[in-house]
């Protein structure tokens, strides 16, 4: 599997993604600077978390216009798998590769804690190893994760089973605490129409090693590797 990780000025979770991919695939992914305008043929592109361009104007707005994004769009159009995590999800929505937008968290706070997610579909390479309905505990760390889209878009995402992950209450957790940012329909992650692009606010890469307190994010990377290897 040939994977590339895109780094913008202000990206800071690239090493976490590299470690998670190496653990799952045994291979070292390419690390690509955002100014590159050509990429080799790839199986997977990851846009990791961070604060690309300092979140200026809107999170992801500047990064969406970086030279490398033309190439990301070209490869995505060919069916190459693309994952945007946290800031990467914001970049994908700003670039028009995924619908909707990520607004400021409803309580205005930067939220850094573990959340519980439910995998909502097994029909994607990203969720295939979880199966529908499986719960996983992974961390979040963001201030702008409040997913918004117009009602027609939300209805389409739900109708086409394109909500990949939803925030749910964990064991013993109050229901009103489950959604950490006010996102519509408790949406934590969505899929593109062809189901090859995933954007999600939580950080599965930071739940792939026992020292991180959870290994429940491994399934996402294992699923990708199994499908693309």
């Amino acid at each position, binding site marked *: 599997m040939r994977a590339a990780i895109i780094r913008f000025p202000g990206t800071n979770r690239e090493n976490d993604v590299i470690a998670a991919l190496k653990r799952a695939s045994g291979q070292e992914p390419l690390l690509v600077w955002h100014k590159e305008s050509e990429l080799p043929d790839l199986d997977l592109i990851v846009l990791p978390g961070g604060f690309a361009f300092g979140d200026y*104007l*809107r999170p992801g*707005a500047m990064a969406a*216009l970086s030279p490398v994004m033309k190439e990301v769009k070209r490869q995505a159009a060919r069916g190459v798998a693309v994952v945007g995590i946290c800031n990467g999800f914001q970049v994908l*929505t*700003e670039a028009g590769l995924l*619908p*909707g*937008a990520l*607004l*400021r*968290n*409803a*309580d*205005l706070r930067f939220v850094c804690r573990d959340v519980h997610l439910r995998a909502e579909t097994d029909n994607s390479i990203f969720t295939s190893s979880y199966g529908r309905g499986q719960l996983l505990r992974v961390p979040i760390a963001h201030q702008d994760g*409040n997913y*918004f*889209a*117009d009602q027609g878009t939300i209805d389409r995402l739900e109708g086409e089973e394109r909500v990949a992950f939803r925030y749910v209450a964990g064991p013993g957790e109050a229901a009103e605490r489950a959604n950490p940012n*006010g996102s519509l329909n408790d949406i934590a992650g969505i899929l593109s129409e062809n189901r090859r692009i995933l954007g999600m606010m939580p950080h599965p890469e930071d739940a792939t090693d026992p020292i991180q307190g959870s290994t429940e994010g491994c399934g996402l990377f294992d699923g990708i590797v199994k499908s693309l290897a």
Partner: protein
Amino acid sequence: MKARVHITLKNGVLDPQGKAIEHALTALGFAGVKEVRQGKLIELELAEQDPSKARAQVEEMCRKLLANQVIENFEVEVEA
């Protein structure tokens, strides 16, 4: 030529910052604040001297970068 872009959240898009300001104003004793919506003001200094060309140029900037039309409206003001 100067241009100003006012960017506001569309109706129906939750504005938690506006809500927080509204609560703070009420807490300060300003009675009757029914709603606060927060937006952005962007000022540009352009080489273009023709007002209608300048407006068209700035509207294109809004569509490509300055505003996210999924959640925001924009209004362009060109200084005569």
